[in-house]
């Protein structure tokens, strides 16, 4: 039972409410994760802070350290943005692959990150671009590199009074030097079985693996490394589980296949 339901329409009120209710409250953004979890009785929050009307947390702007994407920006708005497609191609590919049109209209970048699922489709893209997450509370704000943000499935470094305000993503990632590939069981409406994000800078290749460990993990390799070395580094970076969607061995093989086809396309 939700005892208290607050519709909040500005950032300052959100930070105030978050500091007041702390761990008793849940932020409701697009609701595509939270409402599913409430329905399946996985959580039963006492207070809901609904933030869909906080316009100052929506939008994509060019900043001096990269592109700033508000946490409440929907996957559809990200997909349709020209700057994202030109400068942050892996993120474009990530949101393009999410769920369905309806889910992309509702779901937000901040929700995908805060939910901290190892198969969140925006996470590997943000990792290979070296994005930073801006957290805010009533008393302070801080920037956390995305590869330090996640602690486990559903667990992050966010404190009870903090929110994800925005994400800052360095520019310069296009079709030629970066990408994201997802292997699902069908085209739409499937959570990825596994996914791989990649980016190339000089001859350093950064790979990020989704759905292959309790959190999205990263490996860095030289572009010209041997096939055996590549395989070893990839298998070292991942620790997939067997569950209802796929077995551990299947996940490892699919990841290796995705990496190999990506390497072939690169060379």
């Amino acid at each position, binding site marked *: 039972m939700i005892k208290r339901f607050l519709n909040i329409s500005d950032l300052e009120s959100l930070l105030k409410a978050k500091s007041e209710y702390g761990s008793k409250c849940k932020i409701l953004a697009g609701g595509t994760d939270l409402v599913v979890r409430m329905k399946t009785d996985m959580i039963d929050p006492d207070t809901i802070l609904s933030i869909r009307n906080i316009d100052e947390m929506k939008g994509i702007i060019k900043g001096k350290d990269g592109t700033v994407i508000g946490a409440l920006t929907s996957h559809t708005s990200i997909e349709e943005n020209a700057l994202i497609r030109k400068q942050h191609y892996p993120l474009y590919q990530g949101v393009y692959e999410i769920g369905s049109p*309806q889910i992309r209209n509702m779901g937000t970048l901040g929700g995908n990150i805060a939910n901290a699922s190892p198969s969140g489709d925006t996470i590997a893209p943000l990792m290979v671009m070296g994005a930073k997450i801006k957290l805010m509370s009533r008393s302070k704000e801080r920037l956390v590199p995305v590869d330090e943000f996640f602690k486990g499935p559903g667990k992050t470094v966010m404190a009870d009074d903090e929110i994800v305000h925005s994400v800052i993503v360095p520019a310069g990632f296009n079709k030629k030097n970066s990408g994201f590939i997802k292997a699902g069981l069908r085209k*739409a409406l499937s959570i990825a079985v596994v996914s791989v994000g990649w980016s190339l800078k000089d001859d350093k290749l950064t790979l990020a693996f989704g759905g292959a460990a309790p959190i999205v993990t990263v490996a860095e390799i030289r572009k010209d490394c041997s096939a055996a070395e590549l395989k070893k580094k990839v298998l070292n970076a991942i620790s997939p589980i067997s569950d209802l969607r796929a077995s551990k061995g299947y996940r490892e093989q699919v990841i290796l296949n995705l990496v190999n086809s990506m390497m072939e396309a690169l060379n």
Partner: protein
Amino acid sequence: MKIRLKLNGSWREFEISNDDTLLHVLRDELRLTGTKRGCGNGECGACTVILDGETVTSCLVLAASVDGSSITTIEGISPQRGLHPIQEGLVANGGVQCGFCTPGFVVSAYDFLSKRESFTMDELKRALSGNLCRCTGYKKIVEGVVAGAEIMGKEIEND
């Protein structure tokens, strides 16, 4: 709590409880039963409505969060008498079998078509990819929507 919605063009005010989904309010409180409940988890699209100009699965929307919003359901798309061109196209092309998925498909197709003058088949298929049908196999649904689009004067581009 009390919320106000602009529902199919007219403002209405009603009492809801904090846990109610928009789907529940539409079907069980307002008796707008054209919107269907399939999975209840955002996966099938039977409950699709247009919320502030975008399609959403109403089973995942908490009604309390959309106070002041504008909502279009299948009842707001289908005319009082007769059928919308998309519905006509679906009927004429065998795109309706049990019909359970149909309102959701019509809402998704309506939202897609009303935002553009022309489209490619790939774009149309992607726009309908959040709606599942266990009867027709989709081909006839896509053909039906194309027929409806033609009646609406929309142009189909090559992929």
